[in-house]
């Protein structure tokens, strides 16, 4: 079935079953591999993207549910690693293996949208869907606070 999607502001037409998870359409059909597969059941956050500005697990979102909406992936967060979260992530040397970090950054971006100056409790609430097997949580927390500062100038 032919579906048209808007990903990072660009329109893509793909031929897939409508129940296909958005994650695999992004990765296999469109070639945007920054969004990662970790669990497939909404339990790790590696696949986090934004749909109409709201955080979503792309592994558990049918592609048909994204039709007519704006999907943003890590590749679309900024053109040049310049989003305040990316700047802060680099400043704090957050990533280790890096595999979870696209999802972490997208979750953090949704958090900052809702709470531009999040408390530690807000960070606990907003970031606990995301597993980091490398244990970078403390640096993620620090980087989110730092990004909030950068964003507020």
């Amino acid at each position, binding site marked *: 079935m032919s579906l048209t999607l808007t990903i990072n502001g660009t329109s893509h037409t793909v031929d897939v079953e409508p129940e296909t998870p958005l994650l695999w359409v992004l*990765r296999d059909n469109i070639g945007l591999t920054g969004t990662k597969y970790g669990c497939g059941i909404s339990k790790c956050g590696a696949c986090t993207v934004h749909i109409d500005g709201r955080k979503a697990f792309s592994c558990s979102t049918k592609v048909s549910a994204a039709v007519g909406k704006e999907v943003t992936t890590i*590749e679309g967060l900024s053109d040049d690693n310049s989003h305040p979260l990316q700047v802060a992530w680099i400043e704090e040397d957050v990533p280790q293996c890096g595999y979870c970090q696209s999802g972490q950054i997208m979750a953090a971006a949704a958090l900052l949208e809702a709470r531009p100056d999040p408390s530690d409790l807000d960070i606990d609430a907003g970031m606990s869907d995301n597993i980091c097997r490398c244990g970078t949580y403390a640096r993620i927390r620090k980087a989110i606070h730092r990004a909030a500062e950068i964003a507020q100038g």
Partner: protein
Amino acid sequence: MSTMKLNRRKFIVASASAAGGLMLAFRIPAGARADAMMEEPWMAGEGGQEVNAWLVIDPDDTVTIRVGQSEMGEGVFTAMPMLVAEELQCDWSKVRAVYADVNRHVQSTVEPYMVAAGAAKETDQLYQRMATGGSGAVRRSRKYLHQAGASARERLKQAAANAWGVERSAVTAADSVLRAGNKSGTYGEFAAAAATIELESEPAIKTPDQFTLLGKSVPRLDTPHKTDGSAVYGIDVQLPDMVHAAVEVSPVPGGRLVSFDFDAVKDRPGVITAFRLGEGGIGKLPYRLDEVANRTNGLLSGVAVVADTYYRALTALQLMPKEWDAGGHGDVSDESIIAGALEVLGNPDDATYNPAVSEGDARGVIGASADKVEATYVTPYLDHACMEPMNCTAHVTADRADIWVGTQNPPGAHDVVVEETGLAPEQVHVHNTFLGTGFGRRFRSDEVRQAAAIGAALGRPVKMVWSREENQRQGKLRPYSVYHFAASLDADKKPEAYWNRVVSHSIFNHLIPQFLKDGLDNQAMEGLDQRLPYRFPNRQVDYAIRDSHIPVQWWRSVGASQNAFALESFIDELAHAAGADPVEFRLGLMPEGSEFRRPLEVVAKEAGWTTDLRRGEGMGVGLAEAFGTIVAQVAYVTVSRRGQLRVETIDCAVDCGHVIHPRLVEMQMESSIVYGLTAALYGEVHIRNGAVVEDNFDSYLMLRMNEMPEIRTHMALSGGEKWGGVGEPAVPPVAPAVTNAIFAATGKRIRRLPIRSHDLA
């Protein structure tokens, strides 16, 4: 488009650059899936000159340093280039890192200057150590990487000296500029001449007091690629004409696929074909539990479905009817395995024990004592649960195999592909990528053999990915281990004898039985036998192996990961029996001058160690040595009346001798503590009907942001000749620090992990 040409000439590589982006692991523009591949990493850039196998210098002074270790988060893409650059004295802002080429490595021996310098044996392979494990990246490659930099620097100086008609000793080299008197030139200008120079003798490498780059926390080279989605992991590899494979093997290791009905799914969209794997199917080495070679990475019996996208392959695989045979292991459970081990543990006269330590007459002294302490501890099977599920991409043709995989063991993967395809070693090219964690799991190449077999059967590029469930069911687990300790105290409450028995599933017995010595697995005994931190006038340690059909493997910090829990818990129990402070008591058991004292003293001071806390609050201590590094930790926990545990802080003191990048060390301490704490709180793989139960993150639980303690790392460096690893040694002390703190807070002693199976109320 000619796939063959692309595959021959261009490869996706993981690479990173200080300047950012230059040699960046590629970014795939939408709709142009194959166009963004990189040149082969070992090919010089435009006009670049290879000065030696480790480094290439471009005319603009960009220095490309080849990395022989695998980047899985520990930072080797930064640390390894720093070791070379320290001696090369190049401009660090123009350094980029790429993987060394394993094909070239297996085909050539080390360069002669390395042998002349005493940094290699003639028979060593080109890149010497190309497998990553044992926290060995810095400590085991340090000398030859320094040498590669120093020998190249002296050649550059000699080339300039020749051109300028001066002595080499008159030439200085700094920040990629050579100078003598009023002459100067760049490394880029002299690289070609330097490559042809032979020196009468190779330069000596620096001593730590001469370091100028090492010791600085420079930004990691890989970070920018890991914040914009451009870093390429094995699972991200895309090739022209590539298809996708999903696999399912017998959930019971050693079991068998009886039948499958491909006809039921073959007409589904995108489905191409299916293969039986292992026994009776494709693959040269079927899994057999009774033969070491076959169980090491042989193909488990199962089936692969190939389709045009991964999701179509996976869906067809899941819908396809299959029938399994448990191969005689269908009634095995973790309970039955551990019960069998506990039976041996309860019988000190069991004939399968082998003595590891026998000093004095511990058994006799304890037997005659009226004041003795005894305890039994149990640690479970654990899975690595790598963040990136296992995967591998293979393109196998009649005269060449290309394999893309994030692996800790490129030469091992290379061997497996040679064996599986029947191609000559020079026809096999393994391309490493970034690893979405490894933790010891990505050492075995079992996934590589699967993909190579599927790729050979198909003859076109295929990416094989394990679903998370498959990843967990094909786990190669951290062994279980059970422990019994007995000790006696004299009239002054001083320990006089100590007797420890250990029964475990042995990794060596499973994978490399020739490494067993007198029936002892020294990894399984790590920290309990020769390097026990504590002295007892009489001491006996015995070890027995009890395996099962479950495949086992190295898991971050290996034997120490669990031995420290048992040992440090028992020492705590002894301290309490003796009415002593747990830190004082430990120091009292260490001889003067013991290396273990400093980290323990540092952590106690920094944590503000005290036993004077309210009920519901506790501090606990844990201490362990692994891979040449000693780590001591103090956990501070609170336990509510209803039994809710919170690990508030963990102080961590580390003595790894020297530090080349302080922030990388801190990051590894934090990472290891989260890893160890996750296991202590939640880690347990159950076996039911012969198969792994926990197959995803809904049942195999991970520590998350809201449970994260504050971690404070303190350096307790002894310097000198000590160069310890840092990727693993902070894992072992976490569990006992926390369970000892729980005891201090509640009076409840946890003798079996994980903590979550205990009621703390």
